[in-house]
């Protein structure tokens, strides 16, 4: 079964996966952009733990997974670049959590925030580049056939449909970049808020 769900709160995501497992849906894989793949099995009580890390090289990613395995945690989903890394305890060595203090658990939100902001800046940059290529004239992105709007009947429609795919190709990236930018900015702000909240909890303790 495939489910689409977006989380920026890792604690809420862990709870969601545990709830799904208690109904017999076991996480098989998380693929990018909020798609969870579940396998139907026996209802069971599982204790998912999520870390957020992005790795530059394969070797470091392996070293990371080896450390968790040594400590009794099985890496169930996540890739070098996926950020979210899902773990399940595989023996009693694991204990109850992958973090032994609140500050290090809160750091996940900081890392996620940083990555969101880098992505946000990338998309804003891409958007700016596209807009600059239009020389400040947005109509350069729409229909360019000379005299299109003066045409009538069959001439108009054939010219219109001939150019439509090109217009879509020109406009779509723009909309996609803008949407991705807004989304990352939104996620980033949410993550930052949670980070500040967790850190202030830490201080008042």
């Amino acid at each position, binding site marked *: 079964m495939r489910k689409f769900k977006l989380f920026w709160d890792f604690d809420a995501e862990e709870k969601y996966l545990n709830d799904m497992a208690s109904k017999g849906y076991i996480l098989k894989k998380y693929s990018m952009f909020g798609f969870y793949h579940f396998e139907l099995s026996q209802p069971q009580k599982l204790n998912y733990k999520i870390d957020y890390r992005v790795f530059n090289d394969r070797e470091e990613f392996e070293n990371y997974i080896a*450390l968790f395995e040594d*400590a009794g945690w099985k890496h169930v989903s996540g890739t070098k670049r996926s950020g979210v890394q899902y773990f399940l305890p595989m023996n009693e060595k694991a204990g109850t959590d*992958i973090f*032994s203090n609140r500050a290090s658990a809160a750091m996940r939100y900081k890392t996620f925030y940083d990555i969101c902001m880098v992505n946000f800046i990338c998309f804003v940059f891409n958007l700016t580049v596209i807009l600059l290529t239009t020389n400040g004239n947005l109509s350069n992105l729409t229909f360019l056939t000379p005299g299109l709007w003066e045409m009538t009947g069959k001439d108009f429609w054939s010219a219109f449909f001939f150019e439509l795919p090109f217009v879509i190709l020109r406009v779509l990236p723009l909309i996609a970049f803008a949407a991705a930018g807004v989304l990352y900015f939104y996620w980033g702000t949410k993550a930052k808020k949670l980070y500040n909240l967790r850190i202030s909890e830490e201080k008042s303790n």
Partner: protein
Amino acid sequence: MNLEKHLPLTETTYYILLSLLEAGHGYAVMQRAEELSGGRVRIAAGTMYGAIENLLKQKLITSVPSKDPRRKMYRTTEEGAHVLQMEVQRLKHMIEIYHMIQGDE
């Protein structure tokens, strides 16, 4: 270089630097820290990985060649050992001043 800025050390950092005076991989450090602290300091995997990453960045530990291709080895640097010494001095002073005021030594 100003090493004062690293002080005071968290208990986790203190035991990691102490454990890595002798080279070891991440899990070995978790075990040594637990052993050295008499079972009191149990560093979990995620916390351990984050701490190693930070200490590498601060150059208080360094990566050393490892025979196991999957597990990296680390060792406390000279700076790291120095920070550890400074921390011990700081703690020593705190204890001495306590005994002086309490007058039980």
